[in-house]
């Protein structure tokens, strides 16, 4: 088993919480893991990505080779497109559709979403809206984990344990709410896939 995921977003959006949940699930499944992160200057509202590699064999490169990512998982639509050169032809693009506009020349959203829909295997999900519907305005990242989970060879139970692990400190309530958010993201992706067929 070999799984390469590019996590994308804008500095400050917290993509590393996604990496932590996926990483936890991988380690609990006794898989190996490498996770290249962006620290430093770009964290000030710049473009950030993380390369998450999971495998049952030793992993060499910390970086995912161009053209071979199984998934781009992005919390921001324009950012999802920036890493297309990494996506394998069979790979999935799973992206939030709520734009993060901290630059003046942000392109037309319709153009961005249109480009997302050009990718053969994609899910475009308004994760911010779904998180709000579930009374979890800050749960956008877990909606994305839920949506992505449908296409990942990781057990859903392990991902849930991962959520339990990272939110444990904040209390049972927060854990429950994030689990519900995860389920919502996953259901949305199921419907999206069914509709696309």
């Amino acid at each position, binding site marked *: 088993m070999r799984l390469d995921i590019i996590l994308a977003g804008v500095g400050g959006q917290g993509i590393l919480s996604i990496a932590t949940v996926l990483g936890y699930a991988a380690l609990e499944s006794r898989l190996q893991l490498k996770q*290249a992160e962006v620290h*430093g200057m770009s964290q000030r509202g710049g*473009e950030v990505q993380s390369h998450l590699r999971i495998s049952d064999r030793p992993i060499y490169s910390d970086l995912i*080779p*161009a053209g*071979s990512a199984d998934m781009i998982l992005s919390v921001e639509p324009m950012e999802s497109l920036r890493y*297309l050169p990494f996506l394998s032809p069979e790979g999935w693009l799973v992206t939030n559709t709520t734009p993060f506009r901290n630059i003046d020349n942000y392109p037309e959203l319709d153009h*961005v979403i249109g480009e997302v829909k050009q990718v053969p295997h994609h899910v475009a999900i308004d994760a911010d809206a779904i998180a709000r519907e579930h009374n979890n305005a800050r749960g956008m990242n877990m909606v994305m984990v839920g949506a992505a989970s449908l296409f990942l060879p990781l057990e859903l139970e392990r991902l849930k344990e991962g959520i339990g692990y990272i939110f444990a400190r904040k209390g049972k309530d927060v854990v429950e709410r994030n689990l519900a958010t995860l389920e919502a993201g996953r259901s949305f992706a199921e419907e999206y896939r069914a509709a696309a067929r």
Partner: protein
Amino acid sequence: MKNNTLLLLGDEAVAQGALDAGISGFYAYPGTPSTEIMEYALNSQQAAEGNVHRMWSANEKTAVEAALGMSYAGKRTMAMMKHVGLNVAADAFVNSALTGANGGLIVTVADDPSMHSSQNEQDSRFFGKFAMIPMLEPSNQQEAYEMCFSAFELSERHETPVLLRLTTRIAHSRAGITRREPLPQHGITLPQDKRQFVLLPAIARKRYKVLLSRQEAFEQEALDSPFNRYFDGDDKRLGIIACGIAYNYVMENYQDSGCPHPLLKLSQYPVPRKLIERLVGECDRILVVEDGMPVVEEMLRGLLDRDLRVQGRISGELPRDGELNPALLRKALGFEAQPGGTVPDGIVPRPPALCAGCSHIDSMNAINEAVRDVYGDGHVFSDIGCYTLGALPPYNSINSCVDMGASITMAKGAADAGLYPSAAIIGDSTFTHSGMTALLDAVVENTNMLVCILDNSTTAMTGGQDSHAHGRLVQICEGLGVHPEHIRTLRPTPKTHDEFVEIIKEELAYEGVSVIIPQRECVQTKTRRTKLAKQGAQ
């Protein structure tokens, strides 16, 4: 997770390795991508229990010197910095090769190929070679951990400082680390030769001969090192030398088949010539793969560069600059590129920017109105920190960013040349790193210039480490001899804009050194502090 396995960044693996190898003191100045070494040590329970020294230093030079002092006293110690920090520490670093070490001394330097967060991509291996000391360069996080043990042993066996070189990709990538049984710390033992650290010319000459005489032993260590490995291969048309992390990028392309070519994995220096001779002897062509500058490739090619069998960054098989990656190696190894998508039109870059509500915004706006709008562009020297983003639109406020502290000294030089007004903008942490001596130069001549020390109570650019300047800036400036009437403080907010502009104008009218200190905490550290306080209160 299994008890002795941890998921750590390369930086954290170094900190944990040093702790498990019995370190007694960490010394560092923050700098991407090295910062997380100290941050890990600061948060480590193990370090707290062992009473391990772990505090930020004023700059990289003070860090290396303090570490040298701890080594003198017989204990294991490490100084950590980013690559350009080694320039600042170079005097101490190069001379420590002559004094030698007593307790194990590691200088850990994180290079930043592709300049993700830096102003150049210098390769610290040049410094290691220059100082003529052993060097280690991990290919993965586990090696980074192991190398702390080996480097301390190497350092003590040969009484020499050891350079541990990381690059961004190792430093900031997480992987599973298997720990070893921790070692106890050393007690105090002074060097046997009490003159060893006295580099008077007569002694220094002797010490230099000692250093020269150790070179052979250093090379033998590299030859015997478990980190350097020669893998044989049947296809001898090509031989590969893969330095540090570059080994991974090579192997990524052979993970299913295994590498068919003879391959030298090089992670400890000085370069062991016997292994190179073997590779060169049996292969038609040599590809040197190194993340950073073509240090080894240049050595092999030599000055006259007639041996066209050696390839790499100089010959163009690999790009001359920038970070390596698996795709670049794929091409250099002669494989076809993997098909992938292209970035659609209209996808624009998203450069980093000052946070909403950042006090630097107010400073930029005031300086623009008082200086640029009155005297035109070109009067504002600046420095390195979040405020360097004032170079970008919409501010376009600053005209320089060279090295830490250079704002004040460049403003002085320009003022000496007759430029008026000549202003410097420097952050609080950068000021105590290397701006104080610069200000003293200006005070001594009462140079007609303006210095703005942007005091946000932290070292923000690198993630908000405590700043040595905190609460001391006015006293420091007074102590350096700036006239108290011309040390002005204010709280920069949109509301105090007019007052700020007025103060700048008044100080520009004063013929001499003026210092303005806008003081308001960084939004990020403030939010974090408030959050922590809330959690504490619960």
